[in-house]
């Protein structure tokens, strides 16, 4: 009697628990490890491939031309843009495989979290792409504005160029946040108020406070001769 009790109440459940734990360890946990190792290998290959392709297409020179090196240094990254992009690709792949490895564990609460992460990941990637493109556009427009203002003799040309760049970057950040669904209504409201205020301030400044300057600038634009105020010189 005593041995049966011992068998049924203690040993059997213990044996079942050990079987389950062992099974979990053997199957799921091992699967998770395999997926992780595969992820490390895949991430390494992706990093190598990205490095080769970007070097082939002169990515570093492209970034240097568009002023991205400075931005990377400001962010504390001293290595080349190719290395930065390769590392980003490496960790993105690692992240994907990490999520897959969690799925391999087959634990019910984790499965739900994993599927949500998978839905979120493309939006994060899209937001990163938007930020990069927005930064490039901001840099380009900053320089275009600066050059146009200097060649037109507009005072404070550098401030004007910087203002344009800031506006573009702010717009890009707003779009990126919208993309990942963070604070949608707050971002939209903030953006609308900020842009509206800037526009109103500029209209007041240019149209009222600086109306004489505005008149001079417009008259020069509409003048039939000596548009740049340089004299009657014929340049060609």
């Amino acid at each position: 009697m005593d041995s049966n009790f011992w068998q049924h109440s203690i040993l059997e459940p213990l044996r079942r628990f050990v079987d389950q734990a062992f099974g979990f360890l053997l199957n799921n946990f091992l699967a998770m490890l395999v997926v992780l190792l595969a992820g490390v290998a895949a991430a390494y290959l992706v990093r190598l491939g990205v490095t080769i392709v970007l070097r082939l297409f002169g990515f570093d020179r492209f970034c240097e031309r568009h002023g991205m090196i400075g931005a990377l240094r400001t962010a504390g990254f001293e290595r080349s843009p190719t290395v930065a992009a390769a590392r980003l690709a490496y960790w993105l792949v690692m992240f994907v495989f990490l999520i897959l490895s969690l799925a391999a564990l087959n634990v019910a609460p984790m499965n739900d979290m994993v599927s949500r992460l998978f839905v979120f990941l493309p939006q994060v990637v899209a937001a990163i792409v938007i930020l990069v493109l927005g930064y490039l556009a901001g840099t380009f427009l900053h320089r275009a504005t600066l050059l146009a203002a200097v060649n037109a003799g507009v005072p404070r040309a550098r401030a004007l160029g910087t203002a344009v760049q800031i506006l573009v970057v702010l717009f890009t950040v707003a779009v990126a946040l919208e993309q990942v669904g963070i604070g949608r209504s707050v971002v939209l409201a903030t953006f609308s108020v900020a842009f509206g205020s800037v526009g109103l301030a500029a209209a007041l400044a240019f149209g009222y406070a600086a109306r004489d300057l505005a008149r001079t600038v417009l008259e020069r634009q509409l003048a039939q001769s000596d548009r740049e105020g340089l004299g009657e010189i014929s340049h060609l």
Partner: protein
Amino acid sequence: MATTEFLRPELARELDRVGRADVLVGIPSYNNARTIGHVVKAVSAGLAKYYPDRACVIVNSDGGSTDGTPAIVLGAETGDHRTLLVEHRSQPVHRVATGYLGVPGKGSAFRTIFKVAELVDASACAVVDSDLRSITPEWIELLIEPVLRQGMDFVAPLYSRHKYDGTITNSIVYPMTRALYGRRVRQPIGGDFGFSGALAKHFLASDAWETDVARYGIDIWMTTRAIADGYNVCQSYLGAKIHDTKDPGADLTAMFTQVVGTVYEMMGGYRRIWGEVKASTDVPTFGFRYTVGVESVAVNVERMIGMYRQGAADLMPVWRQIMGEDTCRTLAEIGERGPGEFAFPAETWVRVVYEFAASHHHRVMAREHLLRAMIPLYLGRTAAFVRQTVASGGEEVEGVIEELCVTYEAMKPYLLERWDQRRS
């Protein structure tokens, strides 16, 4: 048979009527009703006087004038030529007026003229501006004769100009063309020029007509191609060039970026040729050179210096991406000088032009931005040139320009070094 794409259909019928021509004179136009009548009369008189036994045609290539310019071309009375003619004409002078198709600009107008020259098989041709007030019948002989009887393919104009006219030509285009391609064409950007039918066909074969060449870059493009492709080039002295008030739509930024951009762009395609040129030589010059008074020109030196200083203050980060540190340091020092001490040495200017050329080639930034960044530097150099020569006559100023050209040629190895420096 040559195709007639980019020509208006009605033109083909007109050309059937004309048939074949020996001499063709093209006049590009856009709203030049006030001046084109005089030009047509001078051209007609020139053809009647110098080529009475040749089949001649005048072609007006118009950009969509709204003031009746083409009608004036067709209807201009040539008057009584007995005071000019030794004998009566035995061949008619046909007149054709047509609109051009393609990118708006002088280049597209020229392309139409070249095409007509090809279709009528003209052997000697000329193009003159439609707003000329100083054109005489002799200009036709001076532009056509070197082609017809001297074996020339391209006749560049040579004008008497005010010492401060043509500053882009004098400070960049002429010295660069001379240093790069070895020929001393004094005014490589002239609106009036002569060319052979063979050269017209060569130009037509290019695919540059849909680019900025079709706007302000066409003149330097033609001169460069004629020299670099081995055609016989000369220049003819035409006297003073007086034309109507400058085009109010003419904008320095657009003019500068397109002309200098064309010079830089063409360097890429002709690297093997200009890399081998070691010295420049004169081109044959026709026409009798005489002194002529030219209209005075007002120059706002203070504003130019102001724009240079603003460039030095605001654009230095951009300049550092384009030029070397030494050059940028020198430019900063120039910007800090007092108003009475402003000077822009020739050697510094040549370094600027060459470093911009190399950076343009290596695409260190968007090319439009690079060329715009050069404008304050050009204005600074022009201001310094004006200050240096304010008390000088025409000959002394030519001497200063000659020294600049010698500096360009002497520093060519520097250009080659910068050009080849950033091979990827």
